[in-house]
């Protein structure tokens, strides 16, 4: 079957892609700017066609624990929310990471802290990449920059989640969630009927009991488990780094940006080059694992890097760690639901080049 072309909002693309990816269950609770996901799924009613369960839970906390339960049974399950709702889910997320279960969590980020605003932001980078919940764990974090990628990363997210038995977060934002673009949808996949060997589906006489837990009271054994996680995260860092380079080959100045900011910076690269400034863009697609090696390599080539984010400056810390002092690294950001325009990004780059702050 061929791919199907549609004009969709990013949120709708996530919902449709989930059905097509053969997801077994969606558990969510509405919140702006991502309510179209659950609305679309309710309307599509995939239970009648693929058998996918769609359930509006009584709260975000309930939804993530339903995901925990579904994942424990070896099912392809997901939840979506926006910033305040994702904060509520953090306990469940760290338990799922601790129990080494696969699932997909989508955060369509809005401005914070607190209830903040319903307009787009990227201020949940630290929460997604550095923890969010407690304990030494990592999510695999995918950052879509288009409606197409919001669709594509559902399938990719599930694939990575099951490959590493690790929760995957798609870190989007209100702009990509709400905007409409063309999207090529993959043909629907059948829901999988095979049960992973670790899933808790009732003990047959032929094997030992499967236990899903994140509790280990013996510190020696807990440390062995933590070391096992570190090995897994290192493997992920080795194999799963994804990024896109835009006009980097001869770049003297580098923007680093993901998601909506990366789209803005792409235009900024064009504008800067029209003015004779050799700018380029590195767009991390995975935020964990981070494209540190590539940035470090580019640090030998460019004169400075400018991290552009819709935050007070969060990803910029990872850019700095990556280049380890080789070149100056700056941050430019808008907050509170404001989106930087390509012109103001170029102006900021020019100030940095002149030797401003």
């Amino acid at each position: 079957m061929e791919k199907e072309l549609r004009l969709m909002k990013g949120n709708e693309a996530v919902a449709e892609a989930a059905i097509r990816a053969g997801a077994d269950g969606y558990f969510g609770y509405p919140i702006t700017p991502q309510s179209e996901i659950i609305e679309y799924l309710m309307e599509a009613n995939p239970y009648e066609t693929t058998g996918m369960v769609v359930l509006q839970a009584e709260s975000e906390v309930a939804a993530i624990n339903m995901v925990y339960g579904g994942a424990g049974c070896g099912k392809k399950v997901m939840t979506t929310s926006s910033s305040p709702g994702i904060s509520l889910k953090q306990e469940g997320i760290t338990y799922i990471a601790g129990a080494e279960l696969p699932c997909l969590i989508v955060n369509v980020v809005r401005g914070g802290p607190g209830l903040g605003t319903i307009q787009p932001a990227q201020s949940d980078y630290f929460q997604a990449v550095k923890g969010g919940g407690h304990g030494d764990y990592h999510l695999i974090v995918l950052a879509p920059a288009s409606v197409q990628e919001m669709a594509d990363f559902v399938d990719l997210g599930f694939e990575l989640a099951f490959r590493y038995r690790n929760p995957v977060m798609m870190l989007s934002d209100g702009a990509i969630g709400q905007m409409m673009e063309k999207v090529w949808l993959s043909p629907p996949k059948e829901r999988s009927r095979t049960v992973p060997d670790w899933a808790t589906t009732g003990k047959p006489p032929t094997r030992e009991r499967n236990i899903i837990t994140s509790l280990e009271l013996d510190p020696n054994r807990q440390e062995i488990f933590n070391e096992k996680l570190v090995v897994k995260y290192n493997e992920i860092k080795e194999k799963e780094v994804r990024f896109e380079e835009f006009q980097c080959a001869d770049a003297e100045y580098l923007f680093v940006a993901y998601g909506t900011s990366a789209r803005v910076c792409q235009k900024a690269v064009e504008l800067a080059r029209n003015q004779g400034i050799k700018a380029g863009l590195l767009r991390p697609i995975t935020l964990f694992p981070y494209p540190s090696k590539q940035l470090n390599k580019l640090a030998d080539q460019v004169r400075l890097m400018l991290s552009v984010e819709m935050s007070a400056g969060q990803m910029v810390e990872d850019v700095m760690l990556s280049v380890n002092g080789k070149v100056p690294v700056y941050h430019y950001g808008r907050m509170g639901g404001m989106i930087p325009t390509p012109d103001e990004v170029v102006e900021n780059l020019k100030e940095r080049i002149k030797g401003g702050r």
Partner: protein
Amino acid sequence: MTEEILIAGFGGQGVLSMGKIMAYSGVIQDMEVSWMPSYGPEMRGGTANVIVILSSERISSPIIRHFDTAIILNQQSLDKFEQSVKPGGVLIYDGNGITRHPERKDISIYRVDAAEEASKMNSPKTFNMIVLGGFLKVKPVLTMENVIKGLKKSLPERYHKLIPENEKSLLRGEEIIKEIQKF
């Protein structure tokens, strides 16, 4: 070819749906498109705006500050966005309720009195199609045939009986748009 368009007016004027029809038509015409709305409380009254980009190439930023064409449907939006038209660009506005008219000298200005016309035609809901018809006359970036197809795509089937009325309004918009200033 790239056409960067802003449509701004009151919530309920059909600003977002007009943009949506443009986007659908663009897809039918094999263009790259993006439709970036203001959302949230703005959809529930107050002002609403949407940025539509139609292009033969991959669209970089869906968020921009300067537009080839601004379609302005109330005074607040005119005050806010008159300066956002690129020099040499186009501003189209509906004169209904406008007390301070556009003043820029470096752009082309067109006026389409769609609100008045819609009420004359006894078809207030197709107001936005009169505006769109006017736009297409000035900027024929989409063919009328594809716009009608886009309309069908964007309207739920139960409203398809209204398509002839919409089509009439599109054609009426083409007729009534007036050139105020040519740059």
